[in-house]
């Protein structure tokens, strides 16, 4: 619906423009600036055009990091979405304070600062003093040393990620389930539908909007992930858990190769944008089959 023209509203927007300008637009422009120049020192700059971009696109390490990132994000979606929905299905739709308490408990991981999450898991997974590490190493008898074994590092990062973010999917899915009117469940009972049929034909279709949001959020966030894996594994062992953003930071801060890093940042941004757009259009179109 159209809104009225009240020009005074522009004044309310000015602070936001200033903030966004200061924190986002100007730094972004700076990055673009760096990405097209080779900077030796503040007084020696050379305009190199698209050279950095070309170099980064052919960079083997970048390509590997991209593959790792895609695998990671794919696994995240594959695990967190069904798991989140499954957990949400077990929480009763109607209930008093018990339901609210459960939701709060479930949501706790979301409240912890991300580097603290990394730290929690570092300790948790230590074979000598960590609960899980000790359990795996001494009780299950598997030699557990994730800083040196790539597969174990991956599994550790995945466990931490799932533990951290599945609650978000649970909350979203639960909200979606709550909004389904009782009559649907009643009709399904009368039609003799099995629990599976109820899930497939009533619950999932009605949760479409909510699941779209969950998929988009989880994909974007996992594609950009930095803090937790960095604290847990530092990107190692070697390169095995170096995801895109970890690689970017290594470039920019570690090797201080600002030009390359800037170019890469922009590529990164465009990749995320493209994926999200495609996802969104696909899900929107699939949902368009439904009218009211």
């Amino acid at each position, binding site marked *: 619906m159209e809104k009225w023209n009240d020009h005074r509203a522009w004044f309310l927007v000015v602070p936001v423009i200033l903030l966004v300008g200061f924190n986002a637009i100007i730094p972004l422009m700076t990055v673009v600036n760096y990405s097209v120049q080779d900077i030796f020192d503040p007084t020696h700059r050379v305009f190199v055009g698209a050279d950095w971009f070309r170099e980064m696109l052919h960079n083997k390490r970048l390509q590997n990091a991209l593959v790792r990132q895609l695998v990671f994000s794919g696994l995240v979606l594959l695990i967190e979405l069904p798991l989140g929905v499954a957990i949400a299905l077990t929480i009763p739709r109607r209930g008093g304070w018990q339901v609210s308490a459960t939701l709060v408990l479930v949501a706790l991981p979301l409240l912890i600062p991300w580097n603290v999450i990394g730290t929690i898991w570092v300790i948790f997974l230590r074979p000598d003093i960590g609960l899980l590490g000790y359990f795996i190493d001494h009780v299950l008898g598997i030699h557990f040393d994730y800083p040196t074994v790539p597969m174990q590092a991956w599994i550790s990062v995945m466990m931490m990620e799932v533990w951290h973010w599945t609650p978000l999917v649970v909350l979203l899915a639960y909200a979606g389930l709550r909004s389904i*009117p009782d*009559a*649907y469940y*009643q*009709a399904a*009972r*009368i*039609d*003799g*539908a*099995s629990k599976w*049929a109820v899930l497939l*034909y*009533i619950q999932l*279709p*009605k949760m479409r909007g909510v699941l779209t949001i969950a998929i988009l959020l989880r994909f974007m966030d996992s594609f950009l992930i930095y803090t937790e894996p960095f604290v847990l594994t530092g990107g190692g062992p070697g390169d095995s858990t170096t995801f895109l953003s970890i690689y970017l930071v290594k470039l920019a801060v570690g090797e201080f190769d600002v030009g390359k890093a800037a170019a890469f940042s922009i590529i990164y941004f465009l990749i995320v944008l493209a994926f999200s757009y495609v996802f969104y259009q696909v899900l929107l179109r699939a949902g368009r*089959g*439904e*009218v009211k």
Partner: protein
Amino acid sequence: MARIDLKGLAHSYKAAPAEPTDYALRQMDMAWEDGGAYALLGPSGCGKTTLLNIISGLIHPSQGRVLFDSRDVTDLAPQQRNIAQVFQFPVIYDTMTVFDNLAFPLRNRKLGEAEVKSRVNEVAEMLELGADLNRRASRLGADAKQKISLGRGLVRQDVAAILFDEPLTVIDPHIKWILRRKLKQIHKRYKLTLIYVTHDQAEALTFADRVVVMYEGRVLQEGTPQELFERPLHRFVGYFIGSPGMNFLPCRLTSDGAEVAAQHISLPADLLLRAPKAEVLEIGIRPEAIAVSDDNGAGLAVQIRDIEDLGIRKIVTCLLGDHELKVVVPSERPVPLDRGRLVLNPAMTRLYADGHLVG
């Protein structure tokens, strides 16, 4: 086909009901004849939906038993009870076509595809959905969706009763007529027991052979539309049925009738004999049972306050002393403007003592 009996049925949503007001349904015994078309009529909160859900098995009653053809089904789940229910707003499976929607209950019961096809086609034909069978159900209008909801009940061979919970609420007025006609045709053809819950008395009376009027968890009266219209046993039934409802005039009994605002209304002698000692005595007369004429004649002298022209008929609001009366007049008949005379049809004049019908 099923005769449904309710024995000693009562229900409370509270864990430990203490007072009568804690009960959504007060103790009742009822019988629903096989193949009848019933309406459960009452205002919001009277317990009609609760009663419907107990019959369908969605709610387990706190007390009492439910019997289908003398078989105790109180503890059986809805899908074991051979009933179908149509809800207030259309309930369809969005992702399926119309055909799959109608086939769903049959496929859940593991019927062979050939049989499924033939049943679905038959029902779709009856409901005039044949052309839309391959369309996605979510794209149709509200009335088509309600027909699909209804169809899911009709496809099942074993359905004994279909229960309706205010199903025409979201339907436009002129389509309501068409759907009601369709329901009646279905009733005639399949001879199922139909139980229809509504708060709309016009809908209840046109649909049902027998109407059950409920109020605050109790059944006030059960009867044919005509009985309920002509002899409401309780003041509430008189008020609730008919548009506008029955007029009630507080009165005082005299030797040969009643007196309202110092004017006399004759009542039959046997009625006067049966009138108990009561706190409140009222004459009940339906707006359709009063004739209004101009001021030069016999009858009760009244002031004409308002005339509403409703196309088919007129509603005249009159003042008899301090009491307001409504009279329904066919649209052709002239109505005096300022003062007039009312004659009450003696065969339709009722007497109520403390809200209950006398005689």
